[in-house]
């Protein structure tokens, strides 16, 4: 093999290693590599550099469509995997494939159920007889709350719910119900709360809605007391305790829902 010939083949080998040869040329180089130790050594030398190129594209995170896009890709993949996995091959405990606020809402449901059960079990017969009426009333309240919370969880997880994402959460609409689900919230300044605002279709101004505080993990799930189908904008702002009649600070977000 003369030097010029060798250089040309070496150059082609480099283009092959880079994956930049059309099929016909690639086939020629591939055959050649089986018999030419020199070119094969060249290919072996260059291949790690080419494979390293892929690493340069590694993303900081998957999903740029929204805060949960990354988890959604994984959720779709893992759904298939778990269906086909060997029995007993369970996934590690992992983050939430559900948004944090769904977990928070679900935990409220569990807490209500457990509290009621514990209360009943710890009562002795005498106390139970005297407290039946009281517990019965509490149970009805708890059941109503649990039903509301279950409805909220079902709505938040529903595939047919409409979702309007913003930077740290989403407004979720299902049927005539509407929720704001937020995470990564900072506590408002002392003496202040968060307040939701809604604007009905055709209205010119926003109407005050509920005030709320995030939990200590920065999560808040708010059920808005509105007919969701009549609402065109939802916003949240920081307001003095007790709420305001009009927003007094720049909204944390404004989402168009209608």
């Amino acid at each position, binding site marked *: 093999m003369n030097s010029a010939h060798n250089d040309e083949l070496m150059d082609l080998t480099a*283009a092959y290693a880079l*994956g930049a040869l*059309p099929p016909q040329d690639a086939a020629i180089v591939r055959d050649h590599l089986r018999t030419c130790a020199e070119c094969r050594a060249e290919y072996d*030398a260059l291949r790690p550099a080419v494979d390293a190129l*892929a690493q*340069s*594209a590694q993303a900081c995170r998957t999903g740029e469509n929204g805060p949960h896009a990354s988890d959604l*890709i994984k959720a779709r993949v893992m759904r298939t*995997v778990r269906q086909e996995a*060997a029995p007993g091959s369970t996934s590690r405990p992992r983050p939430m494939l559900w948004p944090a606020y769904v977990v928070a809402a679900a935990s409220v449901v569990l807490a209500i159920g457990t509290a009621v059960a514990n209360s009943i079990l710890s009562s002795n017969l005498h106390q139970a007889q005297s407290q039946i009426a009281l517990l019965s009333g509490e149970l009805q309240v708890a059941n109503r709350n649990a039903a509301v919370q279950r409805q909220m969880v079902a709505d938040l997880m529903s595939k047919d719910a409409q979702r309007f994402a913003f930077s740290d959460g989403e407004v979720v609409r299902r049927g005539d119900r509407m929720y704001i689900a937020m995470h990564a919230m900072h506590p408002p300044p002392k003496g202040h709360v968060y307040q939701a605002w809604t604007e009905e279709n055709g209205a010119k101004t926003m109407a005050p809605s509920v005030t709320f505080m995030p939990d200590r993990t920065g999560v808040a799930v708010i059920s808005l007391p509105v007919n969701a189908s009549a609402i065109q904008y939802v916003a949240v702002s920081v307001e003095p305790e007790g709420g305001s009649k009009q927003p007094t600070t720049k909204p944390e977000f404004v989402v168009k829902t209608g």
Partner: protein
Amino acid sequence: MDDASALMARVRKRDAAAFEEIYDAYHRLVYGVALRMLDDVSAAEDVTQAVFLKVWSSPEGFTSGNFGAWIGRVARNRALDIIRSRAARPTSELPEAMPAEDALEDVAFANLDAEKVRRALARLPAEQRDLIELGFFGGITHEELARRTSTPLGTVKTRIRSGLHRLRSELNGVVTI
């Protein structure tokens, strides 16, 4: 056997937990390659999903060697399929997929991270770096590279080769094989 190879051995036994570890470790690589090649978030997400479902359904596709290098090639090939499906050009003008199951010895840099490679790439002469990156991520042939950069084909091939040697040399200084 490295960590990923051990995990893949468990994936072959349908171990979902092992698969999840593989996903967590490599999804950013797959997504990053796809996004760079396709410049389309939704398509990159589709590629990510397809690649990992393929890993799960056909784990035997990875036999041995460096898993990161292997899945990087699988991701590139999958993105290349999409480029092909979009392209108006004849298939013969598009590059062949890279061999993911290569009979040749599988060597790759260990302990790579994106920043190290980016820094190494930045130290290449621009005319070499541009051709290498466009060739790898652009999904085009060396002849198309020559046309697009108005550079003689022979020069393109030589610069690719020189650039890859230089890149390997730059990486040798910071990582090991």
